[in-house]
């Protein structure tokens, strides 16, 4: 049976209690452990298998493998030293969907997601992150 004014006691209760609104841009919310933010790259771990490129749903990751020229001349009779490789990850953050699939499939933990969540930008160029 409808009763008029059922909400009024609650209204007065709220009038006295503290508002729940947070002052967002000044007070930031704590994100939980395991928050999926921006993918960060650790070049020393990367072996250049490109599994992350293969599985990225939005095609946002590009891994470049660059073979550096040998620093020491090859010594006669010994096996040539393994050529050093330089890994670069280009992340198109405007495409990234933050699914953490790259971190999940990476066999050497070369990608981890940080807690950064304010990633909006005025131009797409600033969202192209080159990480070495």
């Amino acid at each position, binding site marked *: *049976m*409808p*009763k*008029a004014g*059922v*909400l009024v006691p*609650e*209204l007065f209760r709220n009038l006295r209690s503290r508002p*729940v609104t947070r002052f967002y841009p000044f007070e930031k919310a704590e*994100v*939980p*452990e*395991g*928050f*999926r933010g921006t993918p960060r790259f650790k070049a020393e771990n990367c072996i250049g298998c490109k599994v992350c490129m*293969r*599985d*990225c*749903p*939005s095609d946002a990751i590009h891994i470049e493998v660059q073979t550096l020229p040998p620093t020491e001349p090859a010594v006669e009779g010994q096996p040539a030293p393994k050529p050093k490789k330089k890994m670069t990850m280009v992340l198109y953050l405007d495409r990234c*969907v*933050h*699914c*953490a*699939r790259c971190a*999940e*499939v990476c066999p050497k933990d070369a990608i981890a997601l940080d807690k950064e969540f304010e990633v909006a930008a005025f131009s797409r160029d600033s969202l192209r992150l080159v990480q070495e």
Partner: protein
Amino acid sequence: MPETIHLPIGPQHPFLKEPAKFDFDIQGEEIVGARMQMGYNHRGIEKVCEDRNYFQCLFILERICGICSHSHTTAFVQAVEKLLELEVPKRGLYLRTLVCELERLHSHLLWLGVAAHEVGFDTLFMYVWRDRELIMEILEEISGNRVNYAINTIGGVRRDLTEAQRKKILASIQPLLDRTAYYAGIGTNEPSFVARIRGVGRMSKERAIEKCAVGPFGRASGVDMDIRRDDPYGAYPELEFKVITSDECDIYGRVLVRVYEIVESCKMVKQILENLPEGDIAVKKVMRRVPAGAAVSRYEAPRGEDVHYVRGNGTEKPERVKVRAPTMANLEAATESVVGAMVADIPIAIASIDPCFSCTDRTTVALKDRKRGRRLTTWAELRRYGIDWYRKNRRISF
């Protein structure tokens, strides 16, 4: 006989949270005809999936919708698991079901707030959404993020639940039940709110069956159908719950059904957490190549029956993924239920199915002059025009 006016609503309108187009013929305040047009959110996800491997599809499908993201991934992984004949570990199934039910809680609370907003009851809207944060925080805690949980993977779930998290969730269930009981009281007692939802948007049981209505919309018309019971999946065979139906056949019934479903979901969350089995959360090794064949997977999303149909062809990429979201089944019926009602009832009647057009559509549309029947402009032209206008008149370039 009053003059019939054509009232266009959408693609942009304050009551539509997502774009869709409705055309109403009205005489005074009464609606005499209704048509609808979807497609404003069509993103071609089904086609995109043909070009991605199964894991990529998983995350793409998660982004069909922001509210029922877990529904789509669960339906999809279930279909793929059927094709791969995987046995998902118990704990994985329980965790998956836990997120399902938490998602239902947050979706139903969201709906209650939106429904209140549609009839101008903003206070209830604010209260409900404030308390919905309880659930959002739990989901954030479990999965890392608030909207797209990314908790599912083929063969199980990606993250385990710690003991501390389990206790925390259990502790926040009781306050939520109290609040839900309070809102149920407000929703059924506040005279102005009841006046707006009682007897509005009627859909008879017969018509609901003919129109193949699903979910709370169908259940409020007395259609006793719930995939969780009829075609059980996940941990549902081991859980005790009631399927809520109502014979009110109007929006009032839909409010009741959803509110009692919140209560049922709370109970289910409790059961899951109390009986959480130990063990692995996912199958260790999953084949990337899926054998040829087709599988149908049905899932009870917060809005109703969500169906995914997956056909594998022995490669890493699916041959066909078909998604049928619950709103697709209900929208025509809801549009029909408005005829005979008043203009003021349009928002709440359409909102009463909890429409999710992102789910339903999966591009863009040209403006058309209906009276003269000629095309005015296409989106590309419109965009060009906008850019040129600003460059010329405001000296702003994009």
